């Protein structure tokens, strides 16, 4: 199944590569993880992979240096990119805000049954001893030096995948493999973690975030990984004038940073979960954005990254609305 899809991907990329500037995809770097790969020559196409270990959202590479530094020439060839369902929404959001044009990208859409979070795997298996890993019939089969572990896929999926409503790419030129049915169809299941925290009293919520954000080391990995954090070196957390964030190490600074990050993504965040995936301190940072996504959905009926023609709700207004 996965093998057929991979062959199909290789074939499609091989056909398209002469017309492309480059191809951005994933390649296996260890049994449980992939790494982004940038392909220009046909020899490397065979290293491309897809499947449940391809956790990175590659859309960010289209708008961050070095890609952003040089504006594309009018006759520039398009860039090929592999996207899962959630990644495709980031692409749509970038197209909406005119960071990229639709013609600039050749989209290889990959329906996704969820990605494996290696941190969750580490709860079951000693990561260093893993020899090979594969997913068969919604079970993760891991071989280590002595035994074979079988873990239900649900137990090791990334948190964002558990409430995924768009596993199939919302925008694509080529679709690789068969479409999959979404894990969740409504707000109740998609925002389960948000609702769970919201059900707690105010003081407990504050205590929760104080203890979670206390671990933050302000490495800004969440910001760097976010495909929609596009301020680059104009980012407000690093400006000295005005100096919104100081070098103090207190929790308030960390709170403020995450407030800013979240508010800048309000109505834009597509919930790809990159911020949480890259967090070295294991802070549920995506949860903050999920709450804002939920607010946007309830208040304005808007979900980010579904319609390339739509305008993100905080970048526009409606004079008639009096109840918000």
């Amino acid at each position, binding site marked *: 199944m996965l093998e057929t899809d991979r062959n199909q991907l290789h074939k499609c990329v091989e056909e398209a590569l002469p017309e492309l500037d480059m191809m951005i995809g994933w390649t296996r770097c260890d049994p449980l993880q992939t790494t982004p790969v940038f392909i220009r020559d046909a020899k490397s196409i065979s290293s491309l992979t897809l499947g449940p270990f391809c956790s990175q959202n590659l859309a960010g590479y289209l708008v961050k240096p070095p890609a952003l530094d040089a504006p594309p020439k009018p006759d520039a060839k398009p860039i090929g990119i592999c996207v899962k369902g959630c990644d495709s929404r980031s692409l749509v959001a970038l197209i909406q805000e005119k960071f990229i044009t639709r013609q600039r990208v050749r989209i290889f859409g990959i329906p996704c049954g969820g990605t494996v979070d290696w941190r969750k795997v580490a709860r079951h298996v000693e990561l260093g001893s893993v020899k090979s890993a594969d997913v068969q019939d919604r079970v993760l089969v891991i071989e280590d030096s002595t035994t074979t572990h079988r873990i239900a896929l649900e137990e090791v999926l990334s948190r964002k995948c558990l409430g995924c409503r768009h596993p199939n790419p919302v925008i694509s030129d080529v679709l690789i493999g068969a479409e999959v049915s979404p894990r969740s169809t409504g707000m109740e299941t998609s925002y389960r973690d*948000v609702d769970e925290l919201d059900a707690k009293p105010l003081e407990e*919520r504050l*205590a929760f975030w104080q203890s979670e954000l206390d671990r933050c080391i302000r490495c800004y990995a969440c910001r760097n990984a976010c495909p929609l954090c596009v301020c680059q070196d104009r980012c407000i957390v690093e400006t000295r004038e005005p100096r919104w964030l100081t070098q103090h190490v*207190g929790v*308030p600074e960390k709170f403020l940073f995450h407030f800013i990050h979240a*508010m800048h993504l309000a109505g834009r965040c597509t919930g790809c979960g990159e911020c949480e995936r890259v967090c070295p301190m294991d802070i549920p940072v995506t949860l903050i954005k999920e709450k804002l996504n939920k607010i*946007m959905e309830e208040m304005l009926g808007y979900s980010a990254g579904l319609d390339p023609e739509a305008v993100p709700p905080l970048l526009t207004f409606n004079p008639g609305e009096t109840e918000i």
Partner: protein
Amino acid sequence: MTDSNPRSSAPAEDTAANRQGIKIVGFLCNWCSYGGADTAGVCRFKQPTDLRVVRIPCTGRMDPLFIAKSLIYGVDGVLVSGCHPRDCHYAVGNFYARRRMEAFKAFLPFMGIDTRRFKYTWVSASEGQQWQKVVTEFSEQIHMLGPNPGVELRSGEILKVSSGLK
């Protein structure tokens, strides 16, 4: 505003509040609410003295970051006021602000900050009385809530709650 300010008829009798050290930051748009507050002063309407006014060019200038920074660092209340919708000096600034602040208001309690400490309202330059009403009501509300603990600087003392997320 201090008692020496001739435009303020605020009484010194509100000393319990002063002892409590309540601080409210008001972000007022230059064209309407700042004028409204001025009108209230000129008319010598009695107002509480806890509000510190920051003049902004338009509520469209209101970055939620201003509110977040204030509340996280222990300001007891934040009041934002601008021109009435459809009456903005720059035509549309307050429409943008309205969506932004509504979203922010709904977001605050999720992070553990009492949403009652933040209020936004519309007051025009001629509505001195309306301004008096807004300030009085909001100040009363903040006094009722008491000082804002903000976010603790050190985490040593705070309750550790496990995330419970899988």
